[in-house]
């Protein structure tokens, strides 16, 4: 079985481009050009250079000694939290802004939930001197004030999404509507491996630098370029796609995906799409999504805004259905506790999204000679208020 996208834009049963005709020219332009543009030597050179001197890559692959001792296995952390702007999101926005420039686009739009992708987009727009508009749910604007301020400081306009439930999915709808209204001069920088083909594949390719580095870093550290397990949190699934990418078809590597259970899978307040979702269409992609029996998309819940998406990228839906990956879900409380554990055992304060991934250590058993690589997708600065409230710091 193949776990990369096929020529029609599908991962097994999932993916495709279920888009209104108004979006067809935009998405088609992208589909026809993304592979050839990103393969140009000049593109690659600029992308690699920016990742190096601006983002700070390669990010370290860090052997977590104390954690390894405690869990009696070999634990490595891929330090995406050390990327400029504090998370893996910027790998994708660098790639997409370079692509947008080569397509002659003059205006960038993006959606954001917690504000991480919005900040990463505003950052690359500032870097290139391009107009930037970020759609953000009205509720999220209230909940994530520091990131709103960062985007504004970077020169972006933050537009409140006032429709529906006023959160991430509605911000995405608004960004898509903007793109319909501005089909010629605008590029939409989507923030995860979601949306219509070619977005999931394009974003996965930009994030693939994570596993590309992991391979040679592991070879140096352990004498083999593959681990036994790769583990990442999944919201839309971009940091996970990046860590899995070069191991997707390598059966020696076990893939573990961690979703947010929120207040518990059966609580009605959860974001565990693999457990609660059914096949359907969200934001132009056929995938698993949380919905009512009548096919209305429901509002997910997680304490971490970055995992609070009612769908999951089509690659992950396929990994789940084909059982290539094992999916687990972790409730708020355990994730928060892991935020504290990682801080105090390794001196790394993780984003709450990231903290979910580490909770896999309590759920899965790993052997003493096995190598486990975690994607440390982001740092916890943005979450300090939530940590303060939660732990009464």
């Amino acid at each position, binding site marked *: 079985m193949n776990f990369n996208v096929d020529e029609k834009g599908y991962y097994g049963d999932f993916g*495709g481009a*279920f888009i*209104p005709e108004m979006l067809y*020219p935009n998405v088609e332009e992208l589909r026809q050009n993304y592979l050839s543009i990103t393969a140009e030597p000049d593109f690659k050179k600029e992308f690699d250079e920016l990742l190096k001197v601006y983002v700070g890559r390669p990010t370290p692959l860090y052997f977590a000694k104390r954690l390894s001792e405690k869990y009696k296995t070999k634990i490595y952390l891929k330090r995406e939290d050390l990327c400029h702007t504090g998370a893996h999101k910027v790998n994708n926005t660098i790639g997409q802004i370079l692509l947008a420039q080569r397509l002659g686009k003059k205006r960038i739009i993006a959606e954001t939930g917690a504000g991480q992708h919005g900040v990463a987009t505003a950052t690359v727009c500032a870097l290139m001197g391009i107009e930037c508009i970020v759609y953000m749910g009205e509720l999220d604007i209230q909940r994530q004030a520091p990131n709103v301020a960062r985007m504004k400081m970077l020169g972006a306009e933050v537009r409140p999404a006032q429709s529906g439930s006023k959160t991430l999915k509605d911000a995405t709808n608004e960004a898509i509507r903007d793109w319909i209204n501005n089909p010629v001069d605008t590029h939409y920088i989507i923030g995860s491996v979601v949306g219509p083909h070619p977005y999931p594949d394009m974003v996965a390719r930009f994030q693939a630098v994570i596993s590309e580095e992991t391979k040679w870093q592991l070879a140096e550290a352990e004498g083999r370029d593959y681990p036994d397990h790769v583990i990442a949190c999944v919201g839309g699934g971009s940091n996970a796609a990046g860590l899995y990418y070069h191991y997707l078809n390598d059966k020696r590597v076990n893939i573990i995906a961690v979703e947010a259970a929120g207040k518990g899978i059966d609580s009605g307040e959860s974001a565990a799409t693999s457990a609660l979702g059914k*096949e359907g269409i969200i934001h*132009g992609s056929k995938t698993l999504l949380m*919905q009512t029996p009548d096919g209305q998309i429901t509002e997910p819940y997680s304490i971490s805004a970055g995992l609070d998406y009612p769908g999951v990228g089509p690659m992950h839906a396929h990994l789940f259905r084909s059982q290539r990956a094992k999916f687990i879900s972790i409730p708020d409380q355990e994730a928060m506790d892991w935020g504290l554990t990682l801080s105090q055992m390794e001196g790394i304060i993780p984003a709450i999204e990231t903290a979910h991934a580490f909770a896999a250590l309590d759920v899965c058993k790993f052997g003493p000679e096995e190598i486990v690589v975690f994607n440390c997708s982001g740092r916890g600065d943005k979450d300090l208020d939530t940590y303060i409230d939660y732990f009464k710091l």
Partner: protein
Amino acid sequence: MNRIDQKFKEGKKLLSLYFSAGHPNLEDTVPILKQLQASGVDMVEIGLPFSDPLADGPTIQESSTQALRNGMTTEKLFSQLEEIRQEIQIPLILMGYFNPMMQFGIEKFCQRCEEVGIDGLIIPDLPVDIYHEQYQTLFNQHGLYNMFLITPQTSEERIHFIDKVSNGFIYMVSSASVTGAKNTFGSAQTDYFQRIKKMKLNTPTVVGFGISNAETYEAATAHARGAIIGSAFIKFLEHQGVERIPEFIKSIRK
């Protein structure tokens, strides 16, 4: 013969109205249809509400959200339409997003459409290519037409493909935009209408998005076989109510 074809055979310019089923009130569907037919409207698009209507502007979004809050569901709409063909003869089209239809079951959905007497569907997020490969046979089996959208950005080649796959009519989106009322059309729109007219397509064209009054209706039907009014009608329903529908129709077409 499909009622849509019959309607176009009559030869006159068509006026078609769109509303969100379940809005303003849950049980308004049948009263609205009766008023529209009595006022001389030629065809109706009944909107199946969806939580995330990404091709729609604020007016249709809000009516859709309200309809869902009122309790509208796919099953509920079919039950409202159960006896509709005893009173309504004009073509009825269901317009909705693909996800609720998938959850209902596409096959069952088509079957229910046929049972209640729906003539066709407009599904903005089911692209023509996917329809052609996976669903066309099924729709045909149930006597359902499927209408596709084209926009000023749609390439000529693609328009010809859509023309080939289409039956009923081609839905010409007036400008690159989501749904929503406009007061006038500019020269860009008229150029586009004329360009399409010159292509001499086999399928008749109907203009939608941005039609709101007699002026935009006239401008659209000067170049196409008909026009569809959505947002402006929904606003009217909200403010003036179902009883006064004939006044709205008179304000568009004498």
